[in-house]
């Protein structure tokens, strides 16, 4: 039962996100815009590059979608409304999202095009930058909850949300999540200005539609993860739990989609240097501080 509810709300969320992204990029709000765009994509010819690695070309977008869906499976929307409450939920989320990298490498390598291939490998470099900054803040969150289960992580924030308990971890996690979802200013794999769309460059028609949908699902999964880990999940006064989840997840996703558009795109080397020299030191400090707080004042 809950799997149907979660999938339906995921579809609704992805559509809402598409509307918001259109609004952020083109500046006009259109509720039917994404539907027409999707129809147009479905009707368009699906080109296949010559001498492509057909297997990877076809599998890349599908694997991307599967990775996003697997990540969504461990995100609780309300008490009891979760596809599967794994004992290792927070780790499983990472495991699922690690395949975003594999899918993008496949999609980049598959079409046998220079821009796509460079973009795919570039995402591997980007991964080296963001990976640690996803895992280390989650470690501090799990330390407080004394569990990797996402339901228990939300329950542990009854007294105080993690965004106030460990604000440094929150900032690091959100920035890393934007890197994972290749959102501007960290959209190096499909850098429109220099790589002509990068990974997306050679995809058209139905395959491009799957690729775009998969990316929306990944953004939603990451917004869901941010809400679960830092913003108290379904917790909140007056409204029912699912409504709080929906409001928070959409707000975080909208913020992630729009904020970066006002910043210049960062260079790969600089992103790596910042992530490792500054980010990892801060993440380690965060783990230390959370450990001390957890031992001294148990809240």
């Amino acid at each position: 039962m809950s799997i149907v509810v979660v999938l339906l709300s995921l579809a609704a969320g992805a559509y809402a996100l598409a509307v918001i992204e259109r609004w952020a990029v083109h500046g006009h709000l259109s509720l039917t815009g994404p539907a027409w765009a999707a129809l147009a994509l479905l009707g368009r010819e699906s080109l296949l590059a010559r001498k492509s690695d057909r297997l990877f070309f076809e599998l890349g977008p599908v694997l991307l979608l599967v990775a996003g869906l697997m990540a969504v499976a461990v995100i609780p929307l309300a008490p009891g409304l979760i596809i599967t409450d794994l004992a290792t939920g927070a780790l499983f989320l990472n495991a699922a999202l690690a395949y975003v990298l594999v899918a993008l490498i496949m999609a980049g390598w598959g079409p046998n095009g220079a821009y796509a291939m460079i973009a795919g490998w570039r995402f591997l470099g980007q991964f080296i930058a963001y990976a640690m900054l996803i895992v280390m803040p989650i470690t501090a969150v799990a330390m407080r909850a004394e569990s990797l289960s996402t339901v228990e992580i939300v329950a542990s924030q009854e007294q105080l949300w993690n965004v106030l308990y460990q604000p440094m971890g929150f900032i690091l996690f959100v920035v890393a999540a934007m890197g994972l979802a290749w959102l501007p200013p960290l959209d190096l794999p499909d850098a429109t200005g220099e790589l002509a769309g990068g990974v997306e460059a050679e995809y058209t028609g139905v395959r491009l539609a799957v690729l775009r949908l998969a990316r929306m699902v990944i953004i939603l999964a990451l917004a869901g993860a941010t809400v679960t880990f830092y913003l108290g999940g379904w917790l909140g006064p007056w409204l029912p739990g699912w409504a709080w989840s929906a409001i928070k997840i959409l707000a975080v996703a909208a913020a992630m989609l729009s904020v970066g558009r006002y910043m210049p795109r960062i260079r790969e080397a600089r992103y790596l240097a910042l992530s490792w020299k500054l980010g990892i030191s801060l993440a380690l400090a965060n783990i230390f501080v959370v450990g001390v707080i957890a031992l001294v004042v148990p809240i």
Partner: protein
Amino acid sequence: MTVQMIFLAFFGGAAVWFGVVVFRTHSMVRSALALLFSQTAIGAMFLVMQAEFLGVLQIMMMATEMSVMAIFMVMFMMDPGGMGKMDMTHQKRLSLWAGGIGLLAALLLVWLPDWGPVALSVPGAHEQAADLGRELLGRSMFIFQSAGLTILTAMIAATMVAIVPNAEQGK
């Protein structure tokens, strides 16, 4: 129990099949990703055997490791896409012997030692994660810490070797 056995056999077969694909393809990226999916199947076997933490960890770690390996294979091989149909095998007699001896050793390891009785009840997933944490921070701490330090040293040394000082950096 039987359903578990069927899934175990399925993922075991998948792991072996992808392992074969690693050597059958000419494309370096396909080869690396076939190895990844072979390892993912082993992670799925852990999950079937109700070792949740180990399974998820295996599935997570291999995705990154094999992707990094893929880019090195692409960088160092002359025909990374396999489109030139270049033969990249060498030392066939030696590798046949090594593979045969490895297979024999694996089979002996399966049959010879007394593996003890089959565990009929498995602790819950929450309990397993907690037990693993106590083990890692207790009895096995020294081993894991020294292994971690060794790997870190090797990583730093490899990076130092890879950075060739040139005139521009010297300024």
